[in-house]
């Protein structure tokens, strides 16, 4: 999620820039043993990601959730196995990956974004053809991929959306991860990984039409599944922190809605997502959308923007309604049935949700 910097005008700063002071703070007190080429010890990395109080200041939590998952992720990177962050969309996979890279290598920029059209040269190396023709094959004519750079410098490389990459291209990673080397047959040489090199990949398990990892590649990864927040209060805390940060960053004059309003949006998302009311008493139809935490955040910040520019400066149910409905009803057929059922059987019966019910009812009747 972008967090623009008002001073530089840069729309989004890298984690290691935005949180440079925190990294410095931890580095100063971190006396534990650091794996080769790591900027912090595993303990320090965990502190950076999970937050806490240290002498000289506080570390903001970057990830809300199960501490053990983050510990497993960090310990994985400290061994020579690569890390695969897996899970439904909107569970902060890329966010965690970026912060881990920032804390471990001080650099989160060695990034390959996985797409269906990605070629092998994006994972290995390409050529500067002008040079290649002028000078013939040489190291100078070679264009290193972020992964090759990470190998040479002993840093963390990141691969986003690994499963979107075509299978044969994915498998280029096998040699890199198992042999820790990248052969360059054109030059009769190779690039060897230096200590500290490792790969963090992310992939989501909800997408259709993705390329499953081959079992050979899968074996090179330890998998950590980042779950959707298990508890409603946890999810509300995430949404509130992010919404506040976004509002500040985007200069939206409207204050974020009251906690009760956030709770309602989060509750609606959770209930529809899990197909069950929070009290476990009633089963519901689940719409086709993922209804992730990230979407709840964008519904609320969208509502804030609406209220600021077209409303009276305070987020009302009406400002949230269209975003909410849009997030739920992705497929007009079955999703709108699920949504209507939810309105009639759940929203309608909750006494203090009366205003919500009326607003949505009007929208449907229009």
């Amino acid at each position, binding site marked *: 999620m972008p967090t623009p910097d008002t001073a530089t005008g840069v729309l989004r700063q890298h984690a290691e820039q935005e949180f440079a002071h925190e990294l410095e703070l931890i580095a100063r007190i971190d006396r534990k043993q650091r794996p080769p080429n790591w900027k912090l010890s595993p303990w320090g990395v965990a502190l950076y990601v999970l937050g806490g109080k240290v002498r000289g200041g506080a570390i903001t939590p970057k990830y809300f959730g199960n501490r053990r998952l983050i510990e497993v992720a960090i*310990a994985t990177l400290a061994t020579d*196995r690569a890390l695969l962050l897996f899970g439904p969309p909107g569970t902060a996979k890329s966010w965690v990956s970026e912060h881990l890279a920032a804390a471990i290598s001080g650099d989160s920029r060695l990034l390959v974004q996985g797409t269906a059209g990605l070629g092998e040269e994006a994972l290995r190396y390409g050529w500067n053809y002008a040079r290649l023709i002028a000078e013939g094959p040489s190291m100078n004519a070679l264009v290193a991929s972020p992964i090759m750079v990470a190998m040479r410098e002993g840093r963390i490389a990141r691969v986003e959306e690994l499963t979107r990459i075509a299978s044969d291209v994915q498998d280029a990673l096998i040699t890199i991860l198992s042999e820790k080397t990248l052969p360059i047959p054109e030059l009769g040489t190779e690039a060897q990984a230096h200590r500290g090199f490792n790969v963090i990949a992310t992939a989501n398990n909800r997408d259709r039409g993705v390329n499953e990892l081959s079992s050979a590649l899968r074996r090179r990864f330890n998998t950590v599944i980042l779950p959707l927040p298990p508890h409603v209060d946890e999810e509300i805390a995430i949404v509130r922190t992010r919404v506040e940060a976004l509002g500040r960053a985007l200069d939206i004059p409207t204050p974020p809605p009251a906690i009760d309003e956030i709770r309602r949006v989060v509750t609606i998302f959770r209930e529809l997502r899990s197909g069950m009311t929070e009290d476990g008493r009633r089963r519901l139809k689940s719409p086709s959308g993922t209804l992730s935490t990230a979407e709840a955040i964008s519904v609320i910040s969208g509502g804030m923007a609406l209220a600021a520019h077209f409303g009276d400066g305070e987020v009302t149910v009406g400002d949230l309604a269209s975003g909410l409905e849009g997030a739920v009803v992705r497929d007009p057929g079955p999703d709108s049935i699920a949504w209507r059922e939810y309105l009639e059987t759940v929203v309608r019966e909750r006494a203090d949700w009366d205003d919500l019910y009326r607003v949505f009812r009007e929208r449907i009747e229009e």
Partner: protein
Amino acid sequence: MSRHLFGIRHHGPGSARSLEKGLRELKPDCILIEGPAETNEVLGFAALPTMIPPVALLIYPPDNPSRSVFYPFAAFSPEWIALRHAFANDIPVRFIDLPVAASFAGRKTKEKRETIDDAELLRLRHDPLLWLAQAAGEDDGEGWWERTIEERPSGFGVFEGIAEAMEAVRGNTPELTSAEERRREDQREAWMRREIRSAEREGHETIAIVCGAWHVPALKPKVSSARKDNEILRSLPRMRLHATWIPWSYRRLARSSGYGAGVEYPGWYEHLWMSDHSPAAAWLTNVAAALRRDGIEVPTSAAIDATRLAEALASMRDLPLVGLRELDDAARSVLCDGDERKMTMVREGLMIGSRIGTVPEETPMTPIETELRREAKRLRLPIDGESREYDLDLRTPFGLARSRLLHRLSILGVDWGIERDVLGKKGTFHEVWRIAWRPELSVRLAEASLMGSTLIDAATRAVIEEAERAASTELSPLPVFASLIDGVVLADLPEAIDHLARAIEREASATSDVSEMMEAVPPLARVARYGDVRSSNRLAVASVVKGLLRRISVGLQSACASLDEGEARGMMDRIDKLHDAIRLMDEDDRREWTGALWRMLARPMSGIQHLSTNNRRARAAPLLLGRACRLLLDSDAIPSGEAQRQMELSLAGLDNTRLAGNWLEGFLSGSGLLLLHDNALWRIVDEWLHTLREEEFIHLLPVLRRIFANYTPAERRQLARKVEKNASESVTESAGVYDVERGDRVLGVVALVAGRG
């Protein structure tokens, strides 16, 4: 003369290992163990090779075995190690704790199946270990003990450390317990001191005392005087109790089973006990093997990687050794691809373990066995290998008692008798059983002791556990509950019936699956109906049925909509069974049910013309509409005229022949008598068939065939005769209207369909 105190943690493998080493070094000439005095006469059986833990000492009043107390032992229980050490070296061994009778007789309220565990240490509400753990900078008392004692390689000096630590804890925790608990603890410790003194008087030189760590400071020499202890122990209540050994299971040793002094994961403890070095690698190899058994491919290298991850995690968490938490995390991430479901598949089996112990045949009979022999004698059912058949008349108290006994045993998995289907007689009053005793049944009977000390208690508990297991593991436990209830009624377990009825009620309010509720009704209805033959709790069940019926009635219509043909057929089956069951119920229930059928039938009629269009998915399937109409007609809820109207409307209104055929199938399937005797309906079907075009008729043939094939041969013969007769009538009556030649062609096929051809 010297006493050596070994402060242990009950069922702690680390304690056991240190103890084993300590006893070997000490070479005591007498071993005293914290355990109830009543069991001393049966301790000797533990020396037999056929006694394989987990086993438990069972102590019970012979006149009321359901008030029993258990003392379980696993292979890694320090008390067990001490027992085995004594027998192996031929040293006298004795249990020195206060007799159970003292606390038994003193208790006024009759609590069922209490487990008076001797591990006060763990039961103290204010966990004394927590004090130590906090002093060591940790926040989890159990976990601290685990890491410092249980998971560490053993050492002799550890017991001195424990004694000192406990001294400090006891010295600093003034009022940990209530006055009542305090008094009991004083009595226990006084008794133990007295026993130690008497062993010393007998002239034993080196006495090893194995007790919970908590008691160590109180058992040291010169803590109290013999006179003072006798004062404390004056006027202890007395009571005659029996003791014996029974097999135990890891599942019941686990704390999750409600055993207060239980351990979290017996399987993990056994592993710690069995593996001498690098338990982590061996454990992860086991996890990998278990995953492979479940068909999940796990390479050997993954177990190695997992071990390394576990070690990295332990060092990151500042732990001296890899613990279960690290192993769990590593196994999930490396071996299970992060998938929690794969983890849960193997977790329970490995961590808790499924081991069940055995006891030698020579041990005294368990109360259940005694009860079975007594009952079998009373009911004149000989317990031997010969196979006999009994026809039980449930209307006589004797037959009823026999049936009840056999059903209770079947619930406990002791298949002494096998119930056979009754032919010809009314099943309500008769049961035919073939009984034959097999030796392995003794083993099952002994295992049943795990569940309770009387047959009724054990069977009740077995059912309740099965229901609870279903409630926690099945996505929709309702069908399991329903299937359990039949046997429970026959075995006459009122408590289990109540439990199941409540469980069904609770589950029914949470589920929205009408089909499941429909399946739960028939067995419950049988309970409510035949509750007078069996004197069980029928009123409560009847009210559950009423509640279910109300929910079904609300949801029936939508549950019958949007079904494909196969699903509709399944639903028709459920509707039929429910309809049959409802006939056993009272007038209100019947009205509720026919009301639901009628609403289903009546409401969509206005829109039935749309059935073939897009709206179809919102309406009940025609098959079910036809069925509803038929059932209503059968139970006189609608007059024949209404049925005719419905049929005409449906057959004409459904412009899609296939749907009309479905309606007809729903209406006609089952019995052909209706068509034979109701001429008006016959005429409607007949006329409708005549309106069909040839290809429509051919399309419909399979459906018609299905309808008529289920009629009895006699019905089909009569139908065919009626076809012939009516055909000739219609020719004479209305020759001008019908195309006779065309009709003749159809008749041949109809006759064929009707089974005449």
